[in-house]
């Protein structure tokens, strides 16, 4: 943790909201990303990310400075999203759900083609994650998008390292099966998008 960050945390602990808002500015993207991948809609992600920062601000006295602030805040965001999914049984966006399947990501690309491709990819991501349970989904998100080690995931989700390994193994298998299913189903949008990714990987 850099000196400025620890200073900001100390100032925030003393009640300086402005100091904490600088930390919010810094970590908004990874926190929002976790919430978005977990909950599937920008609105739910915004609410969850805001709530995660509020909870972090209120729990600053319990924050251990030895621990990375990023890990701590992502842990709050992941656990809050898991709770939300369990409580409300939020249905993650699915490719089968025509109403929401092509919902725009919060920050579309510059060109219309890029924006359309990003939409497709985001919808595919959400569809792949859809069948995972809340904790497995969080483990996958932390590993793939935040490069967390097994130990870091275990610490974040309050699991043992071996439990994380077995959860990720199971999740990968489920996602691979889902991916194969998606390539076989008849929906033209899904089929073409999945095939495009398959083509991209084969050319790599």
């Amino acid at each position, binding site marked *: 943790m850099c000196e400025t960050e620890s200073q900001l945390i100390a100032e925030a602990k003393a009640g300086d909201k402005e100091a904490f808002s600088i930390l919010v500015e810094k970590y908004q*993207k990874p926190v929002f990303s976790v919430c978005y991948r977990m909950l599937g809609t920008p609105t739910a992600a915004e609410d969850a990310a805001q709530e995660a920062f509020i909870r972090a601000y209120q729990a600053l006295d319990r924050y251990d400075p030895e621990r990375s602030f990023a890990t701590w805040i992502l842990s709050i965001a992941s656990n809050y999203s898991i709770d939300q999914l369990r409580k409300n049984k939020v249905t993650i966006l699915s490719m089968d759900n025509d109403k929401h399947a092509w919902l725009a990501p919060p920050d579309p690309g510059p060109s219309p083609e890029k924006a359309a491709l*990003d939409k497709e990819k985001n919808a595919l991501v959400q569809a792949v994650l859809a069948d995972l349970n809340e904790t497995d989904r969080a483990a996958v998100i932390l590993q793939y998008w935040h490069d967390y080690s097994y130990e870091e995931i275990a610490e974040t989700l309050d699991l043992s390292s071996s439990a994380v390994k077995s959860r990720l193994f199971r999740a990968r298998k489920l996602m691979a099966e889902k*991916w194969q299913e998606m390539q076989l189903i008849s929906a033209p949008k899904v089929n073409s998008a999945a095939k495009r990714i398959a083509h991209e990987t084969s050319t790599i």
Partner: protein
Amino acid sequence: MDEELNQEQQRELHGHLKQCSQCQALFKASHQIAHLFKTAPEPAPAAGFSVRWLEQIDNMEKRKNRVILVSTLGAISLATLILISTVGLELRSVVGNFPQMMFELVTLITNWVVFLNQVSDIITPLFRVGAKLLSPVWLYITVFGLSGITAAWTIAFYRSREMQKEISS
């Protein structure tokens, strides 16, 4: 896949993948998913996220302060209400019993007046009879006798005190 396999294990895995089409398909699918995850755009919140957070915190604090203020005012009102009710009940009991209390006071005073009248009625004739029976000479002898005894006792008292002082010095 997690770079956890040693060279021997990796050789074994690749050997198996060449033979097993099912595992090969799963491996390929996992690879494609990893590629999808890497290339998917990173979602970002709408502009002004931290400003909205600050607004939320401010609103929460305002709500909290309002709750504290309302609770304090509520507690004070409740305490005042209890105080007023208690005092009111006491006053009511005093007010309710006031005529009885006044009646009892008047009765007590009347009884005392009656008692003193009766005593005076008994004593006054006795004095009158005594005054008629005793001649003025005996009255003077009694008065001077009691005065003499009192004077003698007082002188004896002072002398004994002086003697005690002399002995102690």
